[in-house]
Every structure is written in C-alpha cells, then in structure tokens.
C-alpha cells in the first residue's frame, strides 16, 4: 500500500538506509553516464578535447558503414546468443524445478552457477582450445575418422563467438526461469489435468504462459550484457567476428578518441534498450497477469 503523505518514522529510516547505496550508484553510475553523454557531443584531437557542441561523432557513425555493420552484427550475435541460451536453459530450469527433489534443488543450482563465477578469461580462452585447429573437437573427429582435415569454420568467426557467449551466459538464463517456475502453484497443474488436459498440453496452456515473466527476465539479463563483451570477440572472433564493444574499446584505449567512443557507447546502449523495450512490449500480456 502507498501512504502518500505523513511519512512514518520507519519509512524515514528506510529512506535513509536506501539512500546510501542510491547516492553511491548515483555518483558512480548516473553521473558518469551523464558524462559520456556530454562527451559524445565533443571532439578530441589526440590529447586535447574540444568542448564545442557538435553532432560530428554521430554523423561519423551514421556515415561510415563500418559502425552500422558492427552494430548490426552485435545485435544479431546477442540475439542469437540470447535465443540459444534461453531455449537451451528452459528445459534445465524446468527439470530442476519440477523433477528434482526439493532437498537437492540448491545443489543443482549451485553446480549450474559455479562455472559462471570462475575465471571468465580463461574459460573463454579454453573454447579456443576446444574449437581450434588442433583442438579437442577436431582431434576427436579426426581420430574417429569422420573428417579428413580439421574443421576451420568453428574458430575465428561469428559462430565461435556465439558458442562461447552462449556458454558464458547459460546460468544467467536458467536462474530467472527457475525462480518463476518455483512460484507456480502446483495445484494449477493438477487443476488443468483434472479439467481434461494431458501433461503435454498442460505445459503449453498453463506452465509456459505462467513462466513467461521468467523467460522475459532471462532474455533481458542475457541480451543486454552480451552487447558489452569485447573479450570473446577479441579472442574467438578473428577479423570477421569483431563486435561493437571491440570498436568502443579501441576508440578509448588505442585511438584515444574518447568522444567517438562515447558516442558509440551511447548509440549501442540506445539500440539495446530499444530492442529490450520492444521485446518487453511484445510480451506485455504475459507480464501483467499477476501482482
């Protein structure tokens, strides 16, 4: 319930407490975000920043096809990664929620989350070992005699980037779906079967619609961060697999063109947000059902 006026003592205390992390996030997130927005309207020539307002950076992004291409590729890679992770993750979340004994659920979740927390860089690198010219897959396939020469289409291209990212973000997709599945009242499923639906049709008429908020959450929590990853494309993508995040990184750290980098970051963020909002909008009927 909302008490618009007459703030109670308890509320004052809560406001004061929440204020601390809020101010921190404001100073370290909102203010810096404002700063890059400002920067994106400036220009930089080697080390000197020219603070006259200009749209040059955005004009350059619009004019050179490389940026549009990178952005498009980034969105496509993130989109495919998201689709792959969420589709692969749903059955696992479903399995843990519905078919694992309650006492074992946390163990499963723990096992699923562990790889997510460990040595990101090395994990990405190891995919190179798995997919590489002399890698695990090629060695194995050669040994068995399925192929005569090592496969080359699995490393240093977009495919490799997609596989690696899908692996890295897998647990992120499972958890939101699992949480929502756990909340589904099991008697709803019994009611559906009581009313004549099979187990199979119950899943599509009851379970899946009820778990859509979790699916939407999983999509967002995978889609948005994957845009910002430059490690995987750098290591796995080769020349043709670079993404927008690599370009941002290059502008900032190698070309010393922070304003252009800032503009790219802004454009990337706006695109991601737009896609994310569109996705939420398309799924709005699943989200407003409860609460």
């Amino acid at each position, binding site marked *: *319930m*909302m008490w618009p006026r007459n703030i*109670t003592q308890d509320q004052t205390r809560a406001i004061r407490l929440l204020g601390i992390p809020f101010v921190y996030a404001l100073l370290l997130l909102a203010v810096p975000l404002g700063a890059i927005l400002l920067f994106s309207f400036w220009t930089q020539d080697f080390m000197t920043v020219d603070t006259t307002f200009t749209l040059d950076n955005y004009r350059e992004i619009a004019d050179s096809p490389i940026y549009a291409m990178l952005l498009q590729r980034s969105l496509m890679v993130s989109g495919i990664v998201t689709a792959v992770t969420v589709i692969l993750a749903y059955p696992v979340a479903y399995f843990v929620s519905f078919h694992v004994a309650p006492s074992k659920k946390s163990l499963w979740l723990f096992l699923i989350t562990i790889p997510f927390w460990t040595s990101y860089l090395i994990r990405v690198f190891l995919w190179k070992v798995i997919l590489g010219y002399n890698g695990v897959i090629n060695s194995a396939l050669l040994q068995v005699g399925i192929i005569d020469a090592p496969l080359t289409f699995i490393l240093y291209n977009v495919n490799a980037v997609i596989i690696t990212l899908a692996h890295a973000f897998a647990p992120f997709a499972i958890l939101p779906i699992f949480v929502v599945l756990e909340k589904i009242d099991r008697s709803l499923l019994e009611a559906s079967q009581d009313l004549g639906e099979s187990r199979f049709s119950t899943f599509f008429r009851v379970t899946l619609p009820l778990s859509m908020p979790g699916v939407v959450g999983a999509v967002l929590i995978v889609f948005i961060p994957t845009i910002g990853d430059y490690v995987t494309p750098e290591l796995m993508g080769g020349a043709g697999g670079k993404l927008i995040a690599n370009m941002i990184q290059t502008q900032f750290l190698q070309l010393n063109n922070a304003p252009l980098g800032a503009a790219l970051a802004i454009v990337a963020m706006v695109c991601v947000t737009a896609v994310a909002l569109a996705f939420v909008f398309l799924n709005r009927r699943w989200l407003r059902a409860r609460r």
Partner: protein
Amino acid sequence: MTDLIQLRGVNKYYGDYHALRDIDLTIRAGEFFSLLGPSGCGKTTLLRVIAGFEGVSGGTVMISDKNMKDVPPNKRPTNMVFQSYAIFPHLSVAQNVAFGLRTRKDIDKANHKALVEEALNMVGLSGFGGRAAHALSGGQRQRVALARALILKPKVLLLDEPLSALDKKMREHMQVELIRLQRHVGITFILVTHDQEEALVMSDRIAVMFAGEIGQMDDPETLYRRPKSRRVAEFIGKMNFLPGQVQTVGDTLDLTIAGFGAAQITPDQMPEGARTGDVSVGIRPETLAILFDGETARRHECPGTVDEVVYYGDMTYYDVRVKDVPQPLTIAMKNLIGRPVLDVGETCRIAWDDRALVLF
C-alpha cells in the same frame, strides 16, 4: 481497581487512511481486557500504540498517569507476546527468557538464573532452559514468549492474537491457562483477538472495534445480552432482526413487531433515547423456541414453517418462516431426550419472550 492505562482522543493516520478514530479507553490495573474486532479494524494498531511501536497522530496515551509521548517501547512498562511469538532462533530457551534482563540494572545479575527458572516454571516449561529455540512446538513457543515477557514484571502484558497459530484443542487449553496465569501474576493483560468466543471466555471487559472506532466496551455478559448496535450484535453471536414500530414510550415501552404482534419492554431493558417510530428488533436464536406437542409458551407464541434444518449433534438450528417477517428466523434448539427433529416444510409453533428483545 485503579486506572492503569488511559487513552484520550487517540487518532492514527497512515497517509489518508484513518486507522484509529478518537479512541477513548480506560483500562484498570489487574484487568483482563480484550480488543475484539474483524481484521483491519485497528485493534492491533491500538495495541502497538500502547506498546510504543506506533506513534499517534493525535491524542494522549497515559500509563500509570505518565504521558507516553516520545517514550520508546524499551522504556515503557509494557511487554508484548507477538503473534509470531518472535522467539530468537539463535538463542536457547533460557537465553530467550533472560533476554530482557540484560538492560535491567535494578535486578542483580546473580539472581538471573533463579528468575529464569521461576519464569519457566510458571509457564510449565521447567527444565526446558537448555533447549534450542527452533526445536520447540507452537504451544511451547508461546509459553517461552509469555515467560520472556513476564520475567520483567511489566505493568501491562500485551498479547497480539496469541492463540491464532494454535490448533483448536491447544487453543482451548491455553485459554484456560492464560486466565489462570493472569489471576496468578495479577498483571493487566490486554488481548487482541478476532475470535469473539475467545474474548467472551477470557476477558473481564471487552472493547469491540470496527473501522478504527470502539463500537462498545462492556463486560462479556452485557455485551452479549445488551449490544448497543446492530454491528456489535451481529459480530458477537448470531441475532435475528425484525422490523417493528414503537407506539408509546413511558414507564414501559409498547411496540408491535412484524409477525409477532404487540410487545412490551420494561424500564430496565429500555435503550437510551428510545423514541416512537420504526425500530429494528433483535432477538437471539437461543431465546426463541419451537413448541412441541403439549408445550405452551410462557409469554407469546406465533405459527411458522420450517425452511431449513441444520443438525449439529447437541443442537439443531432451524430457519423458520413467519408470516410478515421478511427473513426466516433462526432458532437454536437443544436436542433433548425424546425431542424430535423437524423436517423442512413442517409447520410449527414458535415461543418468544419480550424480555429477550433488544431494540436498535
């Protein structure tokens, strides 16, 4: 008995929501007092105002003639038994009971152990001190909560729906034990409950609350027999309502009741400010009776038709249609030896008595 707690014009707002409206209340020392009402009526808020967990938006709270404004809960002579019992799960039973002694500089530390044992003994838990709190049953938790509060010898013990988490058998048992405990320690108990039966059984006095207001404050018998409003009458027990018309108000009050005919009310039953005109006449199901063969009514009788029969074992509840009465009348009959249970559709004679009538 002396007045221990006085509330004068207490109001409480949550934003636009008026949770307590002009509460005036006096609770005497040593009294078992209940705040009774449906959920959301403000009874728990009122208890928390007395405990000091909620401030007031207006009015005063006095305990032992001391204004409690700005006195925090830890400085008030009240202790509380929470609805969830709030037994500290990281402490043992004895540590829970001794919790409040830490800040009581007036009690010698050497006596703590004996006091804890005495408190546990009082609630029937002697020897449980070493148990882990999370290993207790619901009834045992409640006893620990009682011991933990009573060890501090508060002037007032506040109980927030203490029996609602227990099953029916345990609840009835604890009702009796709480009464005994209250007599034994002589401390004022203020009980919040939504269960009218519980309030009637346990209390010296009851305040019935609706929507932030006190509807009536009386001892259990007066509350049941002479409810001051239809709301109170409907909330406590069951009551039939018939339309009536008052003809004369003098030494006695003469009226006619739809379906029943003429009735007369004696001075001691007369409601305050009785006037001539339309009234609502209330009558409890157990004060009506169905007359079986050979029985005659002491005062009045009228004919009716059985509309519904609900058999309870010891009792049978009939809904009986009476000509000119809009709603069927509920009549409660004891199932005495040889007394038949009527069927739906049978005609019967109803006995009623003007001494049982309540006018609204």
